[in-house]
């Protein structure tokens, strides 16, 4: 650390600690507390007033082994923290419930009312009397061990990660293979932090690819530092994650989510170093359903990836909205933003103009990222506008600003970047409505994701993988020209790659730039003559160009390379037929049929065969 000269203190945005009161009270108390407590019959007492509040709102975390840094189970525990409890409840820092108390009601909602906070303040001011009768032994308001009962499978980090003692917020991603031999359907995933004193929240995803595992293996020790791979996702329509005091409940059996074999759990831990090295070994319990789900929720995401906040700006705002094309029941919402966000809100404007708040957080704190689950799902009619509005403070006056002095802040997954998402989990009336919703919504979220990729590409212009991912999203949205641009850039980064030429050719084909596409496929094949998919696709392009003889040669090469794949023979048959060579077409179809394609393909081939046979006569 470097000692500095004179400093101007930054004005705290909240009321400073009233320590003079606490301290003078404390000095007086040494002499007078006993008498105060004895004298006032009307006064607030621990037994009568405070113990029930602590038991219902605090003890679920503040017990031995819990997430709280100390226990609050007895009069002695509480009176030794009395002024602290008064101070943290007054600030609404504890219990940690950031949402406006009028929102919801949500599951696991434990805010204190203003009156209850006043009661605590009064109790401390009056000296913190215990009162009579002494309260019964505090009722246990928490469950030891697994909150949802014995899991069907438990996955634990095999070797603990040792969190270094220093720093403010630490992030590390752990990749845990799930040992399942068959497809499972999951009703709940319970996260146990292992070391609840330092694990502050967990962001959980599933990766069916080896991408996350490779990132983990590339760094020594358990886990890796970096970003969650793009292939690690929420299960379709479900939230996964953990914050202290929250347990995601079992979903009804008909809503379970599918877990494929060879899936890895990707667990990003947000940890708070404690001042000494801390071993961290989280466990995850999975609870299975015996049947496949019959319903799937949809996950909507509002937000902007174009966030670009000038340094010093105090009130940068992003807004987004989406009109639901079907009736939905909102199950849960989860706002997400980083350190500079200050005011976070989402609402629903019904077709008749009525506004229903979804979530409002006036003092956003990155450290408390709950999933807010409605006790009663919020029914919204078709035509309801879901909207969000987040405000950011990128000035030096925002103590949480990670850049001092402030810098330009753009979208990005690192905690030093900014994000602004509102995830909204909804259920539709039936599968048809879900289909309508997903098809309507997907282009919106893809377009936003592409913006995010473009920001990342600007930061890491030599990352070909980003270009490829962005191009694929562009293709899905039908933006062939943008896909060509990204694939061309990717090719520029890895010029000797047959796959890069192939990708570019694919995008050119979608853009109906067939001559260029054929040229790129030929370049791919000049690098790798055994590139079967390139022969196939080049054949398809040549067919579109009505160059049937050239197409036949590509498909011939394809079936030579892949003699056991029926599709190659089927394409070859089509090319022969287009070229008027019906006998050869029939031979190729017979070759395809001998390879026993799936029945729907086989029946189509037989139909074509009959047509070709007719033409040979």
């Amino acid at each position, binding site marked *: *650390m470097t*000692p500095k000269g004179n*400093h101007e*203190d*930054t004005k*705290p945005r909240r009321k400073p*600690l009233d320590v003079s009161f606490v301290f003078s009270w404390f000095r007086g*108390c040494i002499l007078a507390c006993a008498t105060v407590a004895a004298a006032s019959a009307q006064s607030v007492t621990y037994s009568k007033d405070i113990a029930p509040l602590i038991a219902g709102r605090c003890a679920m975390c503040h017990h031995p082994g819990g997430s709280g840094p100390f226990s609050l189970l007895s009069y002695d525990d509480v009176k030794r923290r009395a002024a602290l409890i008064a101070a943290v409840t007054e600030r609404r820092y504890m219990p940690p419930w950031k949402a406006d108390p009028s929102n919801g009601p949500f599951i696991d909602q434990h805010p204190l009312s203003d009156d209850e906070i006043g009661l605590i303040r009064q109790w401390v001011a009056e000296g913190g009397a215990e009162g009579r009768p002494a309260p019964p032994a505090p009722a246990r308001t928490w469950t030891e061990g697994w909150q949802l009962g014995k899991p069907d499978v438990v996955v634990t980090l095999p070797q603990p990660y040792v969190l270094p003692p*220093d720093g403010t917020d630490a992030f590390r991603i752990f990749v845990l293979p799930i040992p399942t031999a068959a497809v499972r359907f999951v009703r709940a995933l319970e996260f146990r932090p292992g070391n609840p004193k330092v694990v502050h929240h967990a962001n959980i995803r599933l990766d069916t690819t080896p991408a996350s595992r490779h990132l983990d293996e590339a760094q020594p020790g358990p886990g890796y530092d970096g970003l969650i791979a793009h292939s690690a996702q929420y299960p379709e329509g479900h939230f996964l994650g953990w914050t202290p005091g929250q347990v995601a409940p079992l979903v009804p059996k008909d809503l379970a989510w599918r877990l494929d074999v060879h899936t890895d759990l990707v667990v990003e831990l947000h940890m708070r170093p404690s001042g000494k090295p801390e071993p961290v070994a989280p466990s995850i319990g999975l609870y299975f359903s015996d049947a496949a789900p019959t319903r799937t929720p949809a996950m909507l995401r509002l937000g902007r990836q174009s966030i670009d906040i000038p340094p010093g700006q105090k009130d940068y705002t992003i807004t987004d909205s989406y009109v639901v094309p079907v009736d939905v029941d909102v199950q849960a919402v989860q706002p997400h933003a980083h350190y500079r966000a200050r005011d976070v809100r989402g609402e629903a404007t019904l077709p008749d103009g009525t506004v229903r708040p979804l979530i409002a957080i006036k003092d956003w704190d990155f450290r408390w990222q709950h999933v807010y689950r409605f006790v009663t799902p919020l029914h919204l009619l078709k035509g309801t506008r879901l909207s969000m509005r987040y405000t950011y403070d990128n000035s030096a006056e925002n*103590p949480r600003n990670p850049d001092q002095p402030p810098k330009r802040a753009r979208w990005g997954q690192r905690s030093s970047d900014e994000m602004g998402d509102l995830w909204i989990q909804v259920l539709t009336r039936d599968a048809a409505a879900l289909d309508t919703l997903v098809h309507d919504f997907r282009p919106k979220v893809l377009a936003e994701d592409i913006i995010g990729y473009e920001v990342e590409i600007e930061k890491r212009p030599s990352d070909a993988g980003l270009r490829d991912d962005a191009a694929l999203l562009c293709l899905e949205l039908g933006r062939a020209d943008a896909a060509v641009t990204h694939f061309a850039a990717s090719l520029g980064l890895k010029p000797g790659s047959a796959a890069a030429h192939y990708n570019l050719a694919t995008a050119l084909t979608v853009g109906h730039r067939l001559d260029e596409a054929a040229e790129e496929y030929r370049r791919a094949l000049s690098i790798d003559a055994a590139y079967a998919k390139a022969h196939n696709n080049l054949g398809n392009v040549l067919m579109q160009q009505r160059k049937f003889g050239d197409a036949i040669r590509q498909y011939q090469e394809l079936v030579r390379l892949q003699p056991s794949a029926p599709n190659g023979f089927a394409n070859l048959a089509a090319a022969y037929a287009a070229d008027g060579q019906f006998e050869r077409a029939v031979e190729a179809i017979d070759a395809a049929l001998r390879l026993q394609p799936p029945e729907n393909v086989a029946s189509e081939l037989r139909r074509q065969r009959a047509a070709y046979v007719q033409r040979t006569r």
Partner: protein
Amino acid sequence: MTVSPALLSLLLSATLGAGADQVRVQTVDGESVDALAAPAGTKAIVFLFTSTDCPISNRYAPEVRRIVSEFARQGVVFRLVYPNPAEQPSAIREHMAAFAYDGAFQALRDPGLALVRHVKATVTPEAAVVAGGRVAYVGRIDDRYVDLGLERPAPTTHDLADALTAVLAGKPVSRPTTQAVGCFIADFAR
């Protein structure tokens, strides 16, 4: 390492500066000593008020050790003060070992809050710098914590180090008191 009681009483034998009052505190072994006594040549004493289970106090351990390593060789004596009478010597020894304070600090107990009152400390963690028989600085270590539940990703001022730098240079401390954020010492007296 732990400082032996004999060595500690030797270290505490001379009172720092002329005219300073005695402030009686205890060693972890229960011996009554004068908190302000220090060996000849001591330029300043830093009292760091802490408690074993205050998370804000504990998170400062690495930063505090950095400050010790920077200033101990410049004639500054560091003393870790446990004002909570409920914290027993065994818990204090465990705490010192767990947070690697052993060797960097002499540990004192202040169950009667004599030293707390003398320097007007209010929370843990809080630092007091005594030099020339006067309290030259009392307050936060740095400005990482703005309030309970409001924390900077990194501090922007280093108040304790700045105060020590000024004291060692014979200059006045520019901000002799700052507001520390943490667990209230007042609670310990309940």
